[in-house]
């Protein structure tokens, strides 16, 4: 919203305060200021001039050669392209040496004819919207008068961030802003000059019917004998400075009141509209708006109809084409109304029509403003168009009045919340400046909220804390340390472990962390030939592009691998994120925190990648989760995993996820040159597994003995079978083992594989004799033989 400082000064005397100080304090006490722009000082040497003669340019069919009187003596010759030039017209003329915004005026030749100056268009000067010709001034304008002496073109325009006014319906017009400046700088706010509406009480009432509770107040008043078509230069100037366009006198006036008071108004042509009916439509209604655009008004909107039940306006948003005022209008039915903010917002969004009026209504305007706005408009209208006559009483249907708000509080409470000791007087002074009424009974304060702050903004004592301290100045509050008891701090395991995993994967295993989105990429999944059946979907996926929430992380990581495949020969990425793959009995999602890893390499084999993942899983299990896990055959293999070379991670009988080489069909669709492996583990499942107790092997002072055994086993049997025998081997000595070597040579070993196992036995109470060792070896070999695992011969 753009605020004209000149306009503000109509209502409050801000003399002696620099603009910088004004805007700084406003920003710290009220709302954020986006820009401050000085205007008018780039209009130089522009004066009223009268056209003395008009000749056609000999070499141009649209240029004219004018002689103008600019008050400096001799007539000045100027070439002008405006179509509305005529003898006797008074206009703004920029003399040679002058300036119109960025344009410096010099003597030039235009198609061979000398031109000394420029006749100015209103749009060029920024004082009118009109672009069709040069400014047409009233006949009483005095030739030679500088534009600065005729109009307050020198101004400071302050643009306030609309978002920071969301909660302040009272600040959507100049008068409200002026009230705020008056409070901040402790100056007096001048009362508005208003027409006395009670003078029309004896005139007949308008026929106004309100049939929806969402219309809080609807007022109307009728006026005839309107003669003036064009607004005054000042009204045009202010509208244009504040970012609006002037249209015609009546439309401009309603807009002017909206910018001044924040109350949107609408003017109907009383010759056409005789009465008003406000309804809530049950069916969609089509209507042509002022600009001639056809809109369908969605059901449950507020619609203004005439007495023949024809829709004539979308309440609070836009007027209709056929019944609105035009330049032919001589009698007027003036609407000043208040509607439910949420209804206006919903209709506005549904239609896709956001207007200056709807923006204001959305903020919950004060219904009391309806009367003020009508009285203000009539006051101005009577002064610029002397012959107008009011033909109806001020007809007021006031359905919903906000309750009066009184808040009980104390100076002690306000001081305590702010952290600054303020007296009752100090508090009363600030609140009174903001139009609150404060009653003090032995220190108990009763604060009455002004109506323009009582529609949603101020209702509880904490709101008063804000009012008091924003005026007191937040920068005047001293920072104060707080004291709290010394208590140990909980650590949330699901959160801590996340970082530990991330740190280990990046620092120890050289993986790169990525963050992705939580939805499935249907196109990519289709491209690699997998489907993901989401449990949850977005209701509106127009902006995200995807609707289904992910049930696995890996497909998105594969997508990232795909996007990076041409830039990197080796890719190793991971993400810890949520998946949404299950609903509980209340239909609420059971979120899971999962870890996914994707490895892709041009140099490493499938086997090497598969084992790298196994190494990672074991590291996490042993060093981060401290749990026992097993690798089981994959019974329910994920679609992107290799059916043979993948496995399930199981701990305490519970599956925590899968990992393995990528399915050849998926891999080939991403990158044929690379080998791929992927992993997906449920972090919560791993956290919930029983923790291992560290078992200490007692140390012995006796010499250990190290022995190597070469076993052979059918190649179809996994090493785990051999290791099981080792794990379960019972022995009186301290028994440790490791796999030293694996040798596979089908021809030599007849489809068997050889494993070299190193065993270390340490006696606890005596030195081992060769006899002891022989006895041990024999029993050891026999135990294996029972499982059909024999010594290599």
């Amino acid at each position, binding site marked *: 919203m753009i605020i004209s400082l000149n306009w503000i000064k109509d209502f409050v005397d801000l003399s002696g305060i620099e603009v910088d100080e004004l805007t700084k304090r406003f920003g710290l006490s009220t709302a954020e200021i986006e820009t401050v722009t000085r205007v008018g000082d780039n209009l130089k040497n522009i004066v009223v001039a009268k056209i003395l003669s008009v000749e056609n340019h000999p070499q141009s069919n649209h240029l004219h050669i004018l002689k103008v009187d600019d008050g400096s003596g001799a007539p000045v010759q100027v070439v002008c392209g405006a179509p509305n030039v005529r003898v006797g017209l008074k206009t703004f003329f920029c003399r040679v040496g002058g300036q119109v915004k960025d344009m410096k005026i010099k003597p030039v030749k235009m198609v061979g004819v000398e031109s000394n100056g420029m006749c100015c268009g209103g749009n060029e000067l920024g004082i009118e919207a009109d672009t069709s010709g040069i400014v047409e001034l009233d006949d009483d304008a005095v030739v030679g008068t500088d534009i600065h002496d005729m109009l307050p073109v020198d101004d400071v325009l302050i643009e306030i961030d609309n978002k920071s006014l969301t*909660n302040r319906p009272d600040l959507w017009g100049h008068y409200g802003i002026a009230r705020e400046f008056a409070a901040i700088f402790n100056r007096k706010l001048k009362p508005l000059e208003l027409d006395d509406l009670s003078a029309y009480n004896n005139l007949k009432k308008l026929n106004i019917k309100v049939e929806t509770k969402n219309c809080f107040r609807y007022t109307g008043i009728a006026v005839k004998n309107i003669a003036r078509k064009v607004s005054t230069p000042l009204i045009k100037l202010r509208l244009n400075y504040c970012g609006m366009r002037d249209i015609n006198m009546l439309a401009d006036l309603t807009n002017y009141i909206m910018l001044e008071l924040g109350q949107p108004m609408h003017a109907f042509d009383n010759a056409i509209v005789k009465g008003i009916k406000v309804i809530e439509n049950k069916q969609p209604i089509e209507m042509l708006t002022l600009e001639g655009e056809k809109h369908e008004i969605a059901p449950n909107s507020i619609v203004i109809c005439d007495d023949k039940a024809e829709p004539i306006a979308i309440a609070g948003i836009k007027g209709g084409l056929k019944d609105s005022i035009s330049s032919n209008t001589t009698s007027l039915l003036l609407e000043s109304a208040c509607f439910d903010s949420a209804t206006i917002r919903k209709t506005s969004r549904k239609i896709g029509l956001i207007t200056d009026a709807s923006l204001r209504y959305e903020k919950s305007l004060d219904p009391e403003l309806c009367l003020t706005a009508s009285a203000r408009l009539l006051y101005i209208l009577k002064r610029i168009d002397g012959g107008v006559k009011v033909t109806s009483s001020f007809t007021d249907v006031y359905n919903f009045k906000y309750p009066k708000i009184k808040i009980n509080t104390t100076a002690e409470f306000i001081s305590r919340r702010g*952290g600054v000791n303020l007296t009752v007087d100090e508090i009363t002074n600030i609140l009174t400046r903001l139009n609150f009424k404060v009653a003090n009974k032995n220190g108990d304060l009763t604060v009455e909220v002004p109506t323009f702050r009582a529609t949603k903004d101020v209702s509880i004592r904490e709101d008063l804390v804000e009012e008091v301290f924003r005026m007191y100045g937040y920068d005047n*509050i001293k920072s104060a340390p707080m004291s709290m008891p010394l208590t140990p701090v909980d650590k949330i395991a699901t959160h801590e472990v996340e970082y530990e995993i991330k740190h280990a994967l990046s620092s120890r295993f050289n*993986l*790169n*962390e990525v963050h992705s989105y939580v939805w499935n990429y249907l196109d990519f999944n289709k491209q690699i030939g997998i489907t993901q059946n989401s449990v949850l979907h977005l209701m509106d996926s127009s902006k995200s592009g995807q609707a289904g929430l992910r049930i696995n992380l890996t497909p998105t990581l594969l997508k*990232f691998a795909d996007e990076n495949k041409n830039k990197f020969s080796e*890719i190793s990425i991971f993400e810890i994120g949520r998946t949404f793959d299950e609903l509980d009995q209340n239909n609420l999602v059971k979120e899971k925190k999962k870890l996914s890893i994707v490895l892709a390499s041009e140099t490493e084999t499938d086997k090497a990648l598969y084992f790298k993942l196994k190494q990672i899983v074991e590291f996490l299990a042993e060093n981060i989760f401290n749990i026992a896990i097993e690798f089981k055959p994959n019974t329910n293999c994920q679609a992107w995993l290799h059916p043979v070379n993948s496995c399930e991670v199981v701990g305490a009988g519970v599956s925590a996820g899968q990992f393995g080489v990528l399915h050849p069909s998926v891999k080939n669709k991403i990158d044929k040159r690379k080998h791929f492996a992927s992993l997906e583990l449920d972090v919560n499942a791993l956290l919930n597994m029983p923790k291992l107790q560290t078992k200490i092997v007692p140390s012995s002072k006796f010499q250990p003995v190290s022995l190597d055994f070469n076993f052979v086993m059918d190649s179809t049997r996994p090493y785990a079978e051999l290791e099981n025998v080792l794990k379960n081997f019972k022995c009186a000595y301290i028994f440790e083992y490791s796999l030293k070597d694996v040798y596979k040579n089908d021809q030599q070993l007849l489809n068997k594989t050889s494993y070299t196992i190193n065993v270390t036995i340490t006696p606890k109470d005596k030195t081992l004799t060769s006899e002891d060792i022989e006895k041990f070896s024999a029993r050891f070999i026999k135990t294996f033989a029972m499982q059909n695992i024999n010594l290599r011969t």
Partner: protein
Amino acid sequence: MQNKINEIKQYVLGKIKQIKDLKDWQTLRVEMFGKSGKFTELFKLMRDVPAEEKGKVGQILNNAKQEIENLIVENERKMGEEELNKQINSAEKIDITLPAEKCTGSLHPRTIIQREIEEVFTSMGFVVEDGNEVETEYNNFTAVNVPENHPARDMQDTFWLDNGQVLKTHTSASQNRILKKYAPPIRAIFPGRCFRNEDVDASHENTFFQLEGVIVDKDVSVGNLIYFMKEMLSKIFNKPVEVRLRPGFFPFTEPSFEMDVKCPFCDGKGCPTCKNGGWIELCPCGMIHPQVLKNGGIDPEVYSGCAFGLGLDRMTMLSTNLNDIRELNSGNLKLLKQFKIK
């Protein structure tokens, strides 16, 4: 006796010349001073020396022993030194300017910043809570005092899900659960991924990270909030910072503020980061609305509190000079691999 001593001395000098290996010195020592060493034998002869000469002969013997020992030690030391020099001079000159194997892993820049910030809070006694990404309408809106008709609840602004839940629009969605979980005094932060249904461009994301915190105790004041934010931000930026409050509006706090920090990159002189304004809008905050406390089972007559939010994405972009927020969710490894683990 003297003859014998001289004889031994000559023998030792001869031996020393022949020694090639460091371990031979020990052999020579044993040969001289061992149980049946040459010198030990000489000492044995003392038995036959007449009593009146014992002192004199003893001294001669001792001096001689000392002399020989010194000879051995001195030559052993020299040889040791020569041998070390030989080792040093014959060593392969290693070119340490060749590259070593690098750690190529990286954390996401958000994770790095988040951890740094979390550590500041944990050092101040805050618990770090883990929130959900899908929330109920109650937790996301109603519990934190967002009115029934508030635009934030519209389909156009919030990702509603087909089971009636929402992708949480702000970390405040966790407030109710945390207020209920802990009894005052409470100090908690809760970072998390948030979502808004909006069009994505260089400065807008539909998926972003926030970090929010609450402090609840008796008589927490605006002055406390200012103190705390100043301390916390000074630690995060690693230098004393100046902060200022401006009015803000959020349904879950009253009063509400926008907190600006005097630009730590230019000390408020004006730079591209602060768009030459000298201040950076950093942190929405405020005093927790009494209704929010009440919804969390905390009596607002007894307790008050403050809440604050930090945009983790914004903090990340500030500290990494990233200027396109979309990069953070992009999986662009050319970018992400430039970050390390700190």
